[in-house]
């Protein structure tokens, strides 16, 4: 993979990786983690897979290990929060952050299977056909599950927003 190809891969995957890491580590730590994922990929770019889809999948594999490593680190140091600056109530982005925190809460309240579906569609963005293949379901079943997930998210958001006093 040359520089131009790597830059294209970076453009395609940057936000997706950020979201993928953020739901697991939180927004505050996601930026550094994503940088490190790309650094690892850069160092191994001569061995990158051949297609763009496979390369994106490869980046997610690197991200998985980065996340596992960070989780190991946190288990050893559970009382240290890295969200201190992120949650600054005086930040210009405080309101957006509060709403994103609520959205994260909704995400984390989903069942594992719903989270997987959500990940494939909106975080990894693998496409509908690939999502069906990864979930081993038909397109019809995908739409049915999407419909149910939509209802669950709407209900969860309303419930959690009420609890936290945010406008739903």
């Amino acid at each position, binding site marked *: 993979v040359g520089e131009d190809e790597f830059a294209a891969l970076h453009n395609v995957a940057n936000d997706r990786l950020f979201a993928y890491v953020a739901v697991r580590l939180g927004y505050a730590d996601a930026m550094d983690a994503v940088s490190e994922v790309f650094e690892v990929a850069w160092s191994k770019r001569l061995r990158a897979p051949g297609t763009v889809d496979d390369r994106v999948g490869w980046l997610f594999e690197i991200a998985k290990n980065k996340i596992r490593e960070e989780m190991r680190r946190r288990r050893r140091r559970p009382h240290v929060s890295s969200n201190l600056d992120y949650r600054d109530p005086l930040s210009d982005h405080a309101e957006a952050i509060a709403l*994103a925190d609520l959205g994260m809460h909704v995400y984390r309240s989903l069942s594992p299977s719903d989270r997987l579906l959500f990940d494939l569609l909106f975080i990894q963005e693998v496409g509908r056909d690939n999502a069906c293949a990864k979930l081993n379901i038909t397109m019809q079943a995908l739409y049915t599950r999407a419909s149910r997930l939509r209802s669950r998210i709407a209900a969860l958001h309303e419930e959690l927003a009420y609890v936290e006093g945010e406008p739903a």
Partner: protein
Amino acid sequence: VTDDESDEIDGLRRVAESARMPGTVSPESLGIQLESSSEFIARMRATQAGPAVRRSRGLRVAVAFSVIVVIGALAVASPWRSSPAAAATPPALRFEFANEVNAAYAPGKAARGDLLRLAAAARTASPNQGSGMYQLVRTSSWDAHLDPDSANSKAIVVATERSTWLAPDGSMHIEESKGDIVNASGQLAARDPIGTTREELSKGTFDASRSSNLGSNTTAVKQSLLSRADCLNKSSLQTSTCLYREVADLYSTYVVSPELAAYLWTVLAGQPEFRSLGSVTDRLGRTGVGISIDNNKDLGNQRPILIISTTSGQLLGQEILLTRNDPELNLKAPVVYSFSSIVSARYTASDK
């Protein structure tokens, strides 16, 4: 599949966006500017000419000392291999009251006496801690990471040399080099350009005067340490665990004065959970005493050992032993899980 059905996913997206769920929220809206591809490529190009500069949100470094994942080493008699993934884990150091085989669980003896002697050594020592406004701390360690290329869990072992310059305004300049291990001190065989980074943390990231403002007596120092760690009113065992972590963190960032070192060891001497493993020669050949802590659930499958100099009374480093098997890294206890040595800590006039 009808049009209405295929719209379900679009409808789901709209609901997710409305709920500000991850994947539908831009980093920019949260005040987070991700590095662009051109910035990233430029940074990678720069690494080929010199140390990389990584943009950072910062706080990650504050726990650097205590979060070293694994420091594996080869048997001391073995040549260091160029393939870190092939590295075996090292034997534990041989302490007066614990050897390579039982160091993970050897009880040692009550540490109070040794800690008070170390406090006295610190109090009477007159180390050259340099002069200037910047606090420079150099550490040498072996880190093990999960292999990013491996679908299965596998550890790769990498040597790390790290220098941090803490400025009076709380900013920090960091240089970190990684490479293959060449000897038991963690020196590098060759610096990997990708693994060499220079990082700048903005002012206010640290309280630069923390080490000098912890207190002027043992009680005050203990209170400050526990308060910062949110460990007030905990059990004695939890308090000891917190104190161990705070001491390790303190030394990872600050130059610790002889007076403060004396207070720290006196504080630890008051905690019955600390155990002395006796005298030891650390991996840099320095003489010290190993101070461990009783195994407990707060520490998981690890047994930390602080190694404190018998001459200067300063912390020389720490080792963490694995007390139970770690399937994630495919390591079998008892092995050295990590180690970090403080090579030097002094004041300097230069910020890098």
